[in-house]
């Protein structure tokens, strides 16, 4: 069987390699420098990601020109279109051309749709981003209070019930849940649309309504995870010395948890929130299909099937950017919330 670890010893570990008292006052580490360093890492990550995307897509089988012209087109027509689309240039020229273009904000022209990719992506982001935000907010609104309630009622029936609910929530595939939601709230009750999206500028209310069901479908598993994480974090924090200190000051247990526990418990939750954004982005790609939402995921999906390379790679890098930026922002937030990190650099 597995070894039991020397758990007691961990408690005594010095925070860094020096003496166990670990006690010198530490100089503050400049926050701006920290941000600068993270920004550079962020840019490097993006560049490598762009390179990977480009290499993968350059290997793609399937000729976009052939796709556009279809089953009966002549070789000459296809060749003419290929030249017109600039597919003949050498790979490195195309790569750096692409990067340079993006830096200028010019994503190029879609091969199959014949319009500027920047605009296409912006249109789709106007759906995907609010949807992700909606899911994020919903999952927090649902998950965090439930997690707190469960932690406060630890070991009681409410806790057990909520955690069973959370287990189930994690286990239901979100696309399936989305379909069940549609059947109930759109088909049977007709409270909300079955899907589709009205552009924001046309009718913000309708646009918002269109995002509620998909947002819920996306939020369910994340809310369940959040509830569990929140509960565990809070239960953990409850056992910490400073809660005892707070109680010694004259707070009751629950007051101590509210005043001192929540903020500390929020640290692990913040990590999870950062990670969740990436999963939500991945989730939108699937859920957009269920609710026929014109999001970035479906744009990539369609573009791949149409072999619209320029569009695929730019849309993909935007998704990657969204995920990386979230991680970056999470890092910064963490630094804001946790003063201990303001001097560290790892």
């Amino acid at each position: 069987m597995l070894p039991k670890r020397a758990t007691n010893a961990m408690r005594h570990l010095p925070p860094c390699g020096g003496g166990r008292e670990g006690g010198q006052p530490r100089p503050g580490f400049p926050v701006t420098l920290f941000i600068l360093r993270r920004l550079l890492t962020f840019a490097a990550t993006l560049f490598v990601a762009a390179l990977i995307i480009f290499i993968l897509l350059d290997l793609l089988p399937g000729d976009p020109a052939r796709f556009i012209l279809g089953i009966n087109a002549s070789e000459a027509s296809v060749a003419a279109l290929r030249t017109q689309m600039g597919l003949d240039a050498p790979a490195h020229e195309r790569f750096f051309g692409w990067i340079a273009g993006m830096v200028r904000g010019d994503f190029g022209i879609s091969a199959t749709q014949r319009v500027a990719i920047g605009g296409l992506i912006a249109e789709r982001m106007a759906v995907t981003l609010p949807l992700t935000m909606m899911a994020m907010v919903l999952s927090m609104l649902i998950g965090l209070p439930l997690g707190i309630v469960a932690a406060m009622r630890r070991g009681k029936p409410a806790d057990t019930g909520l955690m069973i609910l959370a287990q189930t929530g994690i286990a239901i595939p979100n696309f399936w849940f989305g379909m069940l939601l549609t059947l109930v709230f759109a088909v049977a009750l007709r409270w909300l649309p079955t899907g589709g999206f009205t552009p924001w500028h046309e009718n913000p209310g309708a646009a918002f309504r269109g995002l509620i069901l998909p947002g819920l479908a996306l939020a369910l598993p994340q809310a369940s995870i959040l509830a569990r994480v929140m509960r565990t974090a809070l239960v953990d924090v409850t056992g910490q010395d400073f809660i005892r200190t707070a109680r010694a000051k004259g707070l009751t247990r629950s007051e101590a948890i509210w005043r001192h526990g929540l903020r500390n418990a929020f640290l692990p939750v913040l990590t999870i929130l950062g990670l969740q954004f990436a999963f939500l982005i991945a989730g939108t790609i699937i859920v957009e299909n269920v609710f026929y939402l014109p999001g970035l995921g479906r744009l990539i999906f369609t573009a791949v099937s149409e072999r619209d390379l320029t569009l695929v790679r730019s849309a993909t890098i935007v998704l990657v950017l969204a995920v990386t930026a979230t991680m970056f922002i999470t890092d910064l937030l963490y630094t804001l919330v946790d003063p201990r990190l303001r001097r560290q650099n790892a």
Partner: protein
Amino acid sequence: MNWQRLLRHPSLVIGLGAATAFALLGLISLVWTPYPIEQIVVARRFLGPDPAHWLGTDHLGRDMLSLVMSGTLTSFLVAFSALVIGVGIGVPMGLAAAAWGGAVEWLVLRISDVTFAFPSVVIAILIATLAGPGELNAILAIGIFNIPVFARVARGGALAVATQDYVAAGRLAGLGNAAIAARHLLPNIASLIIVQATIQLSLGILAEAGLSYIGLGTQAPATSLGLMLRDSQSLFLIHPWLGIVPGLTIVLIVIALNIAGDGLRDALDPRLRREGLNHGAG
């Protein structure tokens, strides 16, 4: 640590028992299913549960029980293979980062960052366009996604272990970084990895379902639970049974694995409750 102690955690026993039962059901399909799943008899489709077909038949007249057995196997196989990729690459990466530190650690962290920046569905789309959809695509996509998860967990655990005096003692005894990683770090983060693996396994099963649902995963005539859901989707209003069977199977397997993971966490080490919080992964 012995079995009796493990058995004192009812959630572990229930979860592990149920998950094993499903896995066994899948494994049996390797040698025997009530009916061959490739055998299509359209005239026999949409039969309800009866003695000949315990779970009825699907839209092509295939036996649902056989499909569920085979689909469960595929789902497990995909999730497990992806796990092997994640553990096989991620754990050595994390260990190397902790044992060598410096540039190696920097590199591992950056590789994790880049890998993590690609949502698994995007990886799946890219691979599917390169190599066509299929189980292998799903395995790779989920596996690649698992790599940074395990790299981070392994690095985090190993860094905590590396500060222990016995690691210094190992170095004093002349052990190199690789020997330290293999002798001291790996065995001591094993429980952490096992717990994370249970979680990733359940996430892998969900991810497989998602990928198959959008057509990037398992392809006919093979089947998986996700593919069964996809096939039954448009028939849901007419024959809801066809969707409920694979859907419930997924839910039950994932719950079983998650309960087993929770139980393992409690049983192996109470401290993991705090460290193994990466439940968001997936």
